[in-house]
Structure formats: structure tokens, C-alpha cells
């Protein structure tokens, strides 16, 4: 064996980096190390997601903490020869701050500097397929302590005191949920993990399952002890095959190591886990629908009460928590509820993981204390909006949430303030939109989503969202009518208060919140038949600026509707200048006949002189 490990190389193997080709980087790294003959002096580890997905594949080298971005297989030889052997970091692969300075160490990079990692403590640090690495990071110590030193009541009390709230959406106090499930008497109880992360734009649960699967297994076992259950299920979306395979592997390892199965730690307590894979239905993220799906039925929600804590899976008392919620359990047990309460705000203790995406420079997963402002997340961690564009709005909570406009950039990101603003924490998807986004179009997009995913059981959701969608559809086609906004508002409020489950109740949120903050855009669509964001196809107009047109005819050749024709330049220029143009007889410019234009935008994309504009 190796006498001395001189460096650790962490190759991010989260789903983002896998699709950017990190396995090829890993292979060529191993090859390069072998060529140098130092394979036994360097440890190369495939880790879970480190969070900065757009910079992938990423390679992190310790002890220096040097972080390389966008590494290609052909770069690895240089990394090994220069950095590992000679100790000189490869400058061209280092990330740069927004100001342009090179960042030598991961801890000084703005993207990571403001983050506090509790939930993602092991993601991007350990090899998720190696249980020893999890154990080395205090893994399964919380379980051991719970089983040997604490009564089930102690566990429930600790979680209650921590103030932890469900990270899946509504923010229900986790400790209370555990207490309800504990109090019910039954011969059989179940613990379920909701890993049906369906909100488009949220991928923290995926990263957790892929990057730190043992933390979920440990927390579910603790939950089983607390409420008196011997069997648990993890319901994972079928769209996450890597998560399923890493979980399956982790469960097998945990059984082999005796931290899952019969008579754990000699306490007499037994607990086992199985995986159930979904089949592509968003509504199954709702807890009663999820249970129906696990029973092999159509995933339709049912009225509550009875709550799953009394009658859940197969009619037995069932505790359901979200992946991110479980990931908080072990640290709370080990460090105590006071420590947890010291992070975040009074009403929302702890941290929250946000999936930052959309029109923002640094996309990926970020974990910050609750109460961090949206401005800090967008500008300090996210690095602002690309292309010098203006921030317009942030959508939180996916199709159940709402938008936050620029005027509320300083909002404290926690459950209650977001709900008060008409948005919602949801699972933590955070989509940033710039000035080129049309809010009516975005509201339509979300409604299309909920309409599509509505299970059809209750009328408000099935029919109500359809009517709302029809109205929005009309609006974006320039057929909006006066009174449409008011109809949307009243329908939205009715659906919100009458739908059966969370999906329907929150479906109108994107529409209601965008009307609240961007009413002028709705009015522009209806009254002026104009789309301020320049997105709605039927409402935009393409024009050629005569001064910029060089008469190259590329646009006319590209136009599928053949509606671009040459005109004499002086005529066009004269028209544009109000009749005072000088004559330049030899030049010809092109003009779009908007009565025939199909608005495909082809002309704009082929023009080399930026002469075609969209209004």
C-alpha cells in the first residue's frame, strides 16, 4: 500500500457533470497518473454534485483546494504534470470571479463563499458509493446515539425543538408530523421518503440521493425508531436512474454493515428499506397520491383527513418526509437543536438548498441560511444576469409558486415572507428571468404544466385550470378582451380555495402573482396587443432598419414566407428620416411585408449586421 498520499483529486460525478463527460476525465486522469508512476500516491475519488453544474466537469484538488472548471480529458496530463508533480496550478483552467481575477482556491470563489452546507455537507466531498467515506464524516453516529442513548420520545422532542420545517413545500413542522405518527397505535407503521421531485427547475433531492444516499438511509432509520416503524420506502422518480442505482447500492452496503436490517447496534430495533420507482406523474409528489401510486394504483390524491399519519400506506400509519428534510436529521441529533436554531431565522431555522437556474451566470445548487436575501443569491452567489441584461423576476416554488419582482429583491428568503409575497418556498427551485421574458407567457407555461399534470379527479383543478389556460392562450395570440384579468383573478381564487390537493390549490399562484406584480404586461397584451418582452409570437413584429441594412439579401433568401423584398434605399431612408434623406441611387435595402410574415425569426438569425429587430 501507499506510504503517503500526496493529493486527493475529487472528480464531480453529479448528473450535470456526467452529461458533460466527467467519466472520460476520470479515466484520462487515472491514465496520466499511471504514466507518471504516481498512481499510488494520489487518491482519485468520484464524488456527488458539488453544485456548480454549468462549470462541469469540475475537478477539485486537495490539500490546496484548487478548483478546476470545464476540464477536458486532454487537460488532465497537464494537471498531473504541472500541478501534482511540480505544484504549479494550471492557470487557464481556474475559475474567474466576476471582476476577472483568477480564483486559486475554492473557498475564495464567490459562488461558494456565502454558502453554509448542512444538507449538502457531503455532496461533492465523499464518494457516494463508499460507505467508509460516509462513516468517516460522522455517518451513522447519529443513529448509534439514538439507538443506544435516546428513547423514541427524546428523538421526537429533539426534532420538535429544532424547529425543522418540511422542505418539500408547505413547511409543516417536521417534529409535529413525527409526533402524530408516533402517537397512533398500530401493529405496523411505515416511514416513506418522498423523492418524487417533480417541480421543474428543482434538483436538490436528486443531488442528495446521488451524492449522499447514506444520509437519507440513516435519517429514515432514525425516523423508524422514533415512530415505531420497521419498514421504510423511498419513492424515487423514474427520471432519475443514477439516483436509483446509487441508492440501491447504498442500501445493500448498509445491510452488509449492519446499520440497516435486524437488531441494529444490538438494540433489538429492526428496520429495512426498499425503493419504489415512479412512472412519470407530477401529482405523485402530493403525499396521498404518492401513497396510492406505491399501492400500485393510479396516483390520485384523496381528501385529508385522515392524514397519512393515521391512515397512510396500505391503510397503516405512515410518516412521509421529503429528501432534504431527512438530510437535516443526523446533524440535528449530533449537534443539538440549539445549534440548528442558531442558523437561519426564528420562524424558519436551518438552511435551504436552492436550485439556481434560468438567466443567471452561475447556475447550480446553492445552500444558504434561511433569511438570506434574494439579492445576495442572485448577485453575490449567482454572479448576476448574463449579457448585462436587467433582472426582471425570480420564480420560486415551481408551478406552485409565484414570481418575485425586482422591487422585492431584498426579500428574506424564508417560508412566511415568501408566502406573504404571493410566492412560495416550494421545493426550492429558483428560476431567474431577465427583461426578455414575457410574464404572461411564463404564467401560461406553468398553467399548461399543471393542466397537463392534473389528475382529473376534482372539478376546480381539471376544468378551472383549463379555462384559465384558454384565457391566457387567447391573450398571447392578441385576442385578449377587457375583463380577462378580473376573470383570471376570480377563477384563481376559487380554484385555490376549492381544489382537492396541493397541486390544484397552488396551480393559480403563478398567474395570480404575475398579475399582482406585472399587471401592466397583461394590460399591454389585452389593450395594445403588444408583448413587452417580445416573446409572444403572434404579437411581435420584425422590422429591418434601413440604415443598417447592407442589401446582402440573406434575409430574403432565408424567409420561408417570401415576404422580404428589396426597395430602393433612398426611398426607405427618406421615409425613415421624415423625407429629408439624400439619394443614393445604387444601394438597395430590404423590407418586410408584415401582412405575410410568419414571425419565424429566421431573418433576424441570419442577418450579419443586426439590421433586423423585433418589437
Amino acid at each position, binding site marked *: 500500500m501507499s506510504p503517503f498520499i500526496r493529493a486527493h483529486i475529487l472528480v464531480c460525478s453529479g448528473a450535470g457533470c456526467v452529461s458533460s463527460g466527467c467519466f472520460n476525465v476520470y479515466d484520462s486522469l487515472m491514465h496520466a497518473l499511471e504514466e507518471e508512476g504516481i498512481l499510488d500516491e494520489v487518491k482519485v475519488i468520484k464524488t456527488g454534485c458539488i453544485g456548480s453544474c454549468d462549470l462541469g466537469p469540475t475537478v477539485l484538488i486537495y490539500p490546496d483546494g484548487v478548483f478546476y472548471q470545464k476540464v477536458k480529458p486532454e487537460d488532465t496530463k497537464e494537471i498531473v504534470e504541472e500541478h501534482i508533480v511540480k505544484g504549479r496550478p494550471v492557470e487557464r483552467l481556474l475559475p474567474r470571479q466576476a471582476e476577472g481575477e483568477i480564483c486559486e482556491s475554492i473557498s475564495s470563489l464567490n459562488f461558494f463563499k456565502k454558502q453554509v452546507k448542512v444538507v449538502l455537507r457531503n455532496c461533492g466531498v465523499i464518494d457516494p458509493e463508499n460507505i467508509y467515506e460516509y462513516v468517516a464524516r460522522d455517518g451513522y453516529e447519529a443513529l448509534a446515539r439514538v439507538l443506544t442513548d435516546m428513547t423514541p420520545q427524546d428523538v421526537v422532542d429533539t426534532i420538535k425543538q429544532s424547529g425543522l420545517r418540511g422542505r418539500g413545500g408547505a413547511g409543516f413542522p417536521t417534529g409535529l408530523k413525527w409526533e402524530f405518527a408516533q402517537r397512533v397505535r398500530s401493529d405496523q407503521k411505515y416511514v416513506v421518503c418522498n423523492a418524487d421531485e417533480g417541480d421543474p*427547475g*428543482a434538483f436538490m433531492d436528486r443531488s442528495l440521493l446521488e451524492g449522499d444516499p447514506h444520509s437519507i438511509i440513516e435519517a429514515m432509520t432514525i425516523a423508524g425508531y422514533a415512530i415505531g416503524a420497521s419498514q421504510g420506502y423511498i419513492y424515487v422518480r423514474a427520471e432519475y436512474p443514477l439516483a436509483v442505482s446509487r441508492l440501491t447500492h447504498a442500501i445493500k452496503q448498509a445491510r452488509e454493515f449492519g446499520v440497516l436490517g435486524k437488531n441494529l447496534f444490538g438494540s433489538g430495533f429492526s428496520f429495512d428499506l426498499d425503493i419504489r420507482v415512479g412512472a412519470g406523474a407530477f401529482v405523485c409528489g402530493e403525499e396521498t397520491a404518492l401513497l396510492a401510486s406505491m399501492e400500485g394504483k393510479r396516483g390520485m390524491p384523496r381528501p385529508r383527513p385522515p392524514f397519512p399519519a393515521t391512515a397512510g400506506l396500505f391503510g397503516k400509519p405512515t410518516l412521509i418526509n421529503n429528501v432534504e428534510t431527512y438530510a437535516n436529521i443526523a446533524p440535528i441529533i449530533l449537534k443539538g437543536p440549539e445549534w440548528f436554531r442558531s442558523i437561519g431565522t426564528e420562524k424558519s431555522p436551518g438552511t435551504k438548498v436552492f436550485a439556481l*437556474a434560468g438567466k443567471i451566470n452561475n*447556475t447550480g445548487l446553492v445552500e444558504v441560511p434561511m433569511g438570506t436575501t434574494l439579492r445576495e443569491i442572485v448577485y453575490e452567489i449567482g454572479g448576476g444576469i448574463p449579457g448585462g441584461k436587467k433582472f426582471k423576476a425570480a420564480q420560486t416554488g415551481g408551478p406552485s409558486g409565484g414570481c418575485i419582482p425586482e422591487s422585492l429583491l431584498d426579500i428574506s428568503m424564508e417560508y412566511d415572507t415568501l408566502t406573504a409575497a404571493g410566492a412560495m418556498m416550494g421545493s426550492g427551485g429558483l428560476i431567474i428571468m431577465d427583461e426578455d421574458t414575457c410574464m404572461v407567457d411564463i404564467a401560461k407555461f406553468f398553467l399548461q404544466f399543471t393542466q397537463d399534470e392534473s389528475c382529473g379527479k376534482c372539478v376546480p383543478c381539471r376544468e378551472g385550470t383549463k379555462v384559465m389556460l384558454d384565457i391566457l392562450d387567447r391573450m398571447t395570440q392578441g385576442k385578449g378582451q377587457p375583463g380577462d384579468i378580473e376573470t383570471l383573478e376570480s377563477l384563481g381564487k376559487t380554484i385555490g380555495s376549492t381544489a382537492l390537493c396541493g397541486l390544484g390549490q397552488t396551480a393559480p399562484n403563478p398567474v395570480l402573482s404575475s398579475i399582482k406584480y406585472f399587471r401592466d404586461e397583461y394590460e399591454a397584451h389585452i389593450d395594445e396587443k403588444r408583448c413587452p418582452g417580445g416573446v409572444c409570437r403572434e404579437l411581435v413584429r420584425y422590422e429591418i432598419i434601413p440604415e443598417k441594412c447592407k442589401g446582402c439579401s440573406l434575409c430574403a433568401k432565408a424567409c420561408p414566407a417570401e415576404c422580404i423584398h428589396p426597395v430602393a434605399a433612398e426611398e426607405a431612408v427618406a421615409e425613415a428620416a421624415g423625407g429629408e434623406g439624400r439619394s443614393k441611387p445604387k444601394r438597395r435595402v430590404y423590407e418586410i411585408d408584415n401582412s405575410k410574415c410568419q414571425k419565424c425569426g429566421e431573418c433576424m438569425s441570419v442577418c450579419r449586421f443586426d439590421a433586423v429587430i423585433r418589437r
Partner: protein
Amino acid sequence: MASEVAAKHPKPDTVCGECKCQGNLHDDRFDKLQDIIDKYKDQAGSLIPVLHEAQQLFGCLPEDVQVFVAKGLGIPESEVYGVVTFYSLFSLKPKGKWTISVCLGTACYVKGAADCMEELKKELGCDVGGTSEDGLFTLEGVRCVGACALAPVAVIGDTVYAKVKPEDIKGILAEFVEANSTEARAS
């Protein structure tokens, strides 16, 4: 149902041995399906895992497969059909050799996934849910694949294509068509 599977296999009420095909039309995939059913039979709520494996085996879930599963698990055919049609991952029709899944999640949408989808429809000559005439590609829209940082993304087979632009589509499809003809020449 006129599917490829149904054509090869007799109606389930005339399963080989009882029917007149004398085993000529015997499809051994049904033996494998029986093994799958036996494996799950005693577990509560096993319909969805059985359907997952059945779809892997047959490529889709046509009527005779559904009937076979219903009989095997002892549940009504209507219930099986109900579940198959509820979940978007289960398909009644056979799919192309490769399925192209364009992510229609929010991040991808904001970054222009709709334009890529249009381009694909144009190139493949089929609508969402349809299969191209050469039987190579089935076009689908999926809800968020969770690679939002790489938006817009499309998944073909096991490969995730990141930051796809409409002008990239032709080249991507060509790779697969090329692979297919190489394969055909080799065999």
C-alpha cells in the same frame, strides 16, 4: 390492437399449447414476463414495478401484455389499463429505436427549449409523441430531468445533450442515423 407484439403472439386466451399455432407463434418474452410476475406476486402494490419491467421487455405495453399481467397478478384488466394510461412513462404504442426526450422544465423553457422542439418536429416530420417515418426516433417532451444548469437539454437514449441550440439538431440526429447505418452494414 395492431402492434408488432400482438402480431407475433396469439391472443392470451389461446396461449401456446392450447391454441392451434402449435408453438410456432410462441413468443418467449411471455415466459420472461411470467418470471417477473412470479418474482413480485406476493408483494403488495407490485403492479407498477411489474409494468416497468414488462415495458423494458416488450418496448411498450400493448393490450395482450396488459391482459397477461392482469391475469398473473389477479387484478382486473381495467385496473391495469387505468394505471398504464395514467402514467406518462408507460406507452401503448411501440417506440422508435431511440427516444428523444426534450426537457420542457422551466429552466429549459426560459432558455429556448420550445425552439429546439420545433426544430426536431420539423426534422423528424412528426409531432410530440410520434415516431419518425424511418422508425428510428420517437419524439417526447419530458418534465424536468433535473439538469437545469445545462439548459436546454435533450436526452437521446442514455446521452444527455446539454445547452442544445436549434442549429445543433441536424448534426445530433445525423450521428444516430450514421450509427444506425454502420450497424446495419455490420450485420
